[in-house]
């Protein structure tokens, strides 16, 4: 929505990225030669139904699974994740929040140690505790949580929305270049969803973070993103600025996705199932 006119540097680029599972008769092409350019400070949405390959693509972007074919460039240079150490270095630049906040935490660690870990990961292990405390308080207030109330709690004592917000507090502390959000709002009710989306937008505006938002809800994608990629059967069928793609869709798949979402201002046509 904002800072659209600025010239942006490419942050993550992919050419011919492919992932094939299995071989022979059981070969499944999950992601099929996709090209993408994600720029700095851009809010990108990848929209598709279940089984369209969104999550496989996100795992490849994170380096959790290998790329069968194709090239991914990170900040203009080919990405190198050949060893564990290099992977860790790469993850300083790209972080993720996942669908299920309940399984994202180590249930034996208190919340302050979750946040302390982030500070240590940034290489600031030797800071005095007062400074660390200040940083943690700042991160919590960024997501409208009160750090003083959380210090002695365990993650399971929080509600789903609070947990997901704490995830964002972690991201705020780590300040990666790219945040990959894989359906972060699908397990949260509509009311807290607005809060989470607002925080993601705030991350983009204040830290100039690139946000890759993966969702099946085209309404959410329209609300938050600058650029939208529509994915069907492992391919991008349509991409471009959100206004153009959602309000004037070209591909039949995009049109179908849009008609399948309940509307408020127009009649929702149920006959086209």
């Amino acid at each position: 929505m904002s800072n659209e006119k600025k010239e942006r540097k490419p942050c993550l680029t992919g050419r011919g990225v492919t992932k094939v599972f299995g071989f022979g008769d059981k070969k499944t092409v999950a992601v099929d030669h996709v090209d993408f350019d994600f720029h700095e400070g851009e809010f990108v949405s990848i929209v598709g139904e279940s089984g369209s390959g969104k999550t496989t693509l996100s795992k490849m972007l994170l380096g959790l699974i290998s790329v069968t074919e194709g090239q991914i460039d990170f900040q203009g240079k080919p990405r190198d994740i050949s060893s564990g150490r290099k992977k860790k270095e790469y993850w300083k630049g790209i972080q993720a929040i996942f669908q299920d906040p309940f399984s994202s935490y180590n249930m034996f660690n208190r919340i302050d140690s979750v946040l302390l870990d982030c500070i240590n990961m940034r290489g600031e292990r030797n800071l005095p505790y007062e400074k660390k405390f200040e940083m943690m308080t700042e991160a919590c207030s960024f997501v409208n949580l009160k750090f003083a109330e959380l210090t002695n709690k365990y993650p399971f004592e929080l509600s789903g929305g609070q947990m997901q917000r704490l995830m964002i507090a972690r991201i705020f502390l780590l300040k990666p270049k790219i945040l990959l959000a894989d359906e972060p709002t699908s397990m949260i009710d509509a009311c807290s969803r607005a809060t989470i989306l607002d925080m993601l937008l705030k991350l983009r505006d204040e830290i100039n973070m690139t946000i890759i938002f993966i969702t099946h809800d085209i309404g959410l994608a329209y609300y938050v993103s600058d650029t939208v990629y529509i994915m069907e059967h492992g391919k991008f069928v349509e991409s471009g600025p959100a206004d153009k793609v959602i309000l004037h869709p070209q591909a039949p798949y995009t049109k179908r996705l849009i008609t399948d979402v309940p509307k408020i201002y127009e009649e929702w046509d149920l006959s086209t199932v």
Partner: protein
Amino acid sequence: MGKVMLEVNNLKTKYVTRFHEDVYAVDGVSLKIEEGKSLGVAGESGCGKSTLALSLMGYYFAPLHYISGDIIVDGKTISGMKPDVVRKSVLGNEIAYIPQAAMNALNPTQKIIRFVEDVIHAHDPKATKKDIYDLARKRFEILGLPESVLQKHAVELSGGMKQRTVIAISTILSPKVLIADEPSSALDVTSQKMVIKMMRDLMDKGFIKSMIFITHELPLLYNVTDDIMVMYAGQIVERGTAKEMVFDPLHPYSKGLMGSIIVPEEGVRDHKLTAIPGTPPNLKHPPEGCRFADRCKYATPTCRGMLPDVKELGNGRAYRCLMSENKIREVYKSEQ
């Protein structure tokens, strides 16, 4: 005015925790649904939507306990009945219930037709297998499910198909009230639309007489139900037709909820989403005054001191706030 299918008067139920503490999850809910009408229940997680659904069935088992109130289904009072009687004579043919992950209820070792036989035999032990098969085949055909589904196992069906199958099975006895608790939220948009279409068909073809639809997806409620009721902390805070509730909410909480609607239509990007700050009150010790007072930006000391009554505005519209209708509208207008 149609025949009243479901009437609930001042229903109160509670959960008893392991530490013998009472949690008042449904606290004085009254509602009325006429024949052929549907009612949507909205609210954030933890407001008592699902507990209301469980309570309405009249089938209580620990930790849920019944305190007081009447549930009247088509002239017959079912509150206070013994659980066994409720299970035999009410569930299935008077009230049917679909939980969120209904599709997981299918036993993977059984064919779908066995579940249909199960449901019918529970109410009519003399029904023959052939009659049941014919009934199931006809019903499945009308609802747009292929006949071959009946001979399949649950694992052979996709998620959306399983959900629709379960809905078809649970309404096979043509219940008077169908309570659907988030029947589509675990599905993707296309399957969701199919489920919604099926529920509309059930209503239109008269297989169910009335419906309660529970969800937090407001655009969905707006398209599916005639009326919407908003719950907060175990109580009803506002009730009205779907159109009134989405475009002209009165209670500050409903106003906040309606501000979180996101649809892929022009103009949505321009207005900022409004999130309601704070968290709902702890229902172990509900506040004495208005339950929303702590999160409400219009709250006054009087709000915290006394619980506002439900104000009826006629035509089924009602809200629970101390401010008068005109005052609320003035305040909202001045904010724009």
